[in-house]
């Protein structure tokens, strides 16, 4: 019990942070916002899944993936395919040339459901697919790259290229997967109307609960020996390898885990927003997702959630009133976070905020040690890096 308190909840300060977050998600926001705004927050919270996955992968693992949009998208698309099939039953699509297939297929002169759509009639299969398809995909990429000791910058560039490939593929295959419009017009989940007000509330709370669960599981992983090894690998990969650990296996596991977390976010996104499109898969969204984690604090699971909320709130607020300023602000945010606040909000809180609440700055457990200016991984000369 005591070990669980310490590892899962992170001791007293960790528990306090988690309770504050839970109170904000479950009490403050639902009570103070109307349903439209709350639905927006729900959307932001699905991005928080990615931010959390990037904290694991980038903050602790030192692996910057510029392709988290891939997994978010895969999860989202799996969910969307199930919902779309349910929405296009023969009765409601009887005006089509071929009733019973999704409308965009009919527009593109398809007369039969493609084979890879067939299993998505089953919800069990869909849930399995949401969890496993992105994970297996990540395993394939990770196995090919990490086993050959490709890391750092090269990994970032290749994941980015894969995000590009996937976007072009989805946009190009209008008939099979909905093209640039994405999969839209999703209505019900097993007959339950996901567009109704009550459904929106329920989905919001399910989303919040899932997010908290993901954070708890991540905490357990990070405070285990495995988490220690990740940190060690980030700082001195060679030394960990020489100590007899297979560095690649740990990295592959972390990458798969991050993919799965992102995919859960993607599926929740589809459920709450009611559509999925390639604009959430490509290069630009994937990099924006990194900034959520960076603003919140790349070493803080809870900070990442605040980062996702704040950046997206800023985006919505600014693009409503000053669309031109937003890109300047976003760009400035990237630069400022990197140059001046490498630990994001969580770093600022640790430095100044804690004193306000406790009167003295407590030294946290070793796991929460922030990025030191010099603690960045020294570029290790792996197989692919320039000499």
């Amino acid at each position, binding site marked *: 019990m005591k070990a669980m308190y310490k590892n899962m909840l992170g001791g007293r300060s960790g528990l306090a942070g988690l309770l504050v977050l839970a109170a904000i998600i479950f009490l403050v926001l639902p009570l103070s916002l109307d349903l439209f705004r709350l639905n927006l927050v729900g959307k932001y919270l699905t991005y928080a899944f990615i931010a959390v996955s990037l904290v694991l992968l980038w903050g602790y693992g030192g692996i910057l993936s510029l392709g988290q949009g891939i997994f978010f998208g895969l999860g989202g698309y799996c969910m969307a395919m199930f919902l779309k099939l349910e929405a296009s039953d023969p009765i409601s699509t009887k005006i089509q040339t071929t009733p019973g297939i999704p409308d965009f297929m009919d527009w593109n002169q398809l007369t039969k459901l493609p084979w890879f759509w067939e299993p998505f009639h089953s919800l069990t299969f869909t849930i399995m697919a949401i969890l496993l398809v992105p994970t297996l995909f990540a395993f394939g990429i990770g196995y090919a790259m990490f086993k050959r000791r490709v890391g750092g910058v090269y990994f970032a560039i290749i994941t980015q290229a894969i995000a590009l490939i996937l976007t072009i593929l989805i946009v190009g295959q209008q008939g099979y997967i909905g093209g640039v419009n994405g999969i839209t017009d999703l209505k019900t989940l097993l007959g339950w109307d996901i567009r109704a007000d009550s459904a929106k509330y329920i989905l919001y709370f399910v989303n919040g609960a899932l997010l908290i669960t993901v954070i708890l599981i991540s905490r357990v992983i990070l405070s285990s020996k495995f988490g220690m090894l990740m940190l060690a690998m980030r700082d001195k990969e060679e030394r960990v390898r020489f100590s007899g650990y297979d560095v690649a296996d740990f990295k592959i596991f972390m990458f798969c885990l991050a993919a799965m977390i992102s995919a859960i976010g993607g599926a929740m996104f589809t459920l709450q927003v009611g559509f999925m499109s390639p604009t959430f898969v490509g290069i630009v969204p994937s990099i924006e997702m990194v900034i959520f984690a960076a603003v919140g604090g790349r070493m803080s699971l809870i900070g990442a959630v605040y980062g996702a909320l704040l950046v997206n709130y800023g985006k919505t607020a600014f693009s409503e009133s000053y669309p031109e300023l937003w*890109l*300047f602000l976003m760009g400035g945010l990237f630069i400022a976070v*990197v140059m001046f606040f490498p630990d994001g909000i969580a770093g600022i809180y640790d430095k100044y905020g804690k004193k306000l609440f406790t009167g003295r700055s407590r030294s946290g457990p070793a796991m929460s040690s922030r990025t030191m200016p010099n603690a960045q991984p020294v570029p290790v000369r792996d197989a692919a890096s320039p000499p």
Partner: protein
Amino acid sequence: MSSYSASDLWSIVLMQGFSGLSLFSVLLLMALGLAIIFGQMGVINMAHGEFMAIGAYTTVMLSKIAVEHGFGSFYFLPAILASFGAAFLAGYLVELGLIRYLYKRPLDTLLATWGLSLIMQQAFRSTFGAKEVSAELPEWLMGSFKPIQTVDIPINGVFVMGLTAVVCLGVFVFLFRSRWGLRARATSQNRVMAGAVGINTKKADRVTFALGCGIAGLAGAAFTTIASTGPTTGSLYIVDSFMVVVFGGAASLIGTVMSAFGIAQAQSILQFFMTSSMGKVATLLVIVAILMLRPEGLFAAKVRR
């Protein structure tokens, strides 16, 4: 494919091959700058495409001015130099204000330069408008010549290729045959040692980075002869150019040339036989697959580890 006769097919291959050569030239000019910045210095410059756009916009502006004052046919060569100069200056300032603090943090450089590229894109949009603009081409760059009846070779394409060849040669001489290049290479290989033997490493960094940006500006000037320029033009090419550099082997100049050639040719020929998007997907997939098998790229520098 059976609907084409043998001679038709040959002309198609020739013409697609030539359009591949134009793509090759622009890709190579972009990638040359990156090969210096990323291959030699190890800095990930995600704003590289925007430096290209600086060059393109400079050329477009100068062409507008030149046409107004009636010397429209002579401006192009000075415009190329001006594009280089503008992008060089911008690169110099960016290194001074941003990059030099981040040499030890490659992944953070990636994020910071991405932010920079967002800012630059919005700056282009606010200054020049969201619409694409194109330069007034001088007459000697227009038209095409026909070596045989069915083949049409545009002159601007030939010009861009010539420019690319000159720039390529220039980069080679600069990097491997000049004192500047020696200092730049020494600095990127071993900063401390280079400093110890009296090289001003900070200056070497700055000039090398600015030079890479300047070459991106040249790419922009060349780009205006074959397409129009918009605020997001640069970002369309950024992933491709990174793939060129990584695929060729980061530290190898000849590798960059070969991989730009291979990628451009594959893409333009595949795009004729498949749809445009599938051609691109196929090309990128092959590159990623090869990179997974051979992460050091095609022409890896042989180094003892």
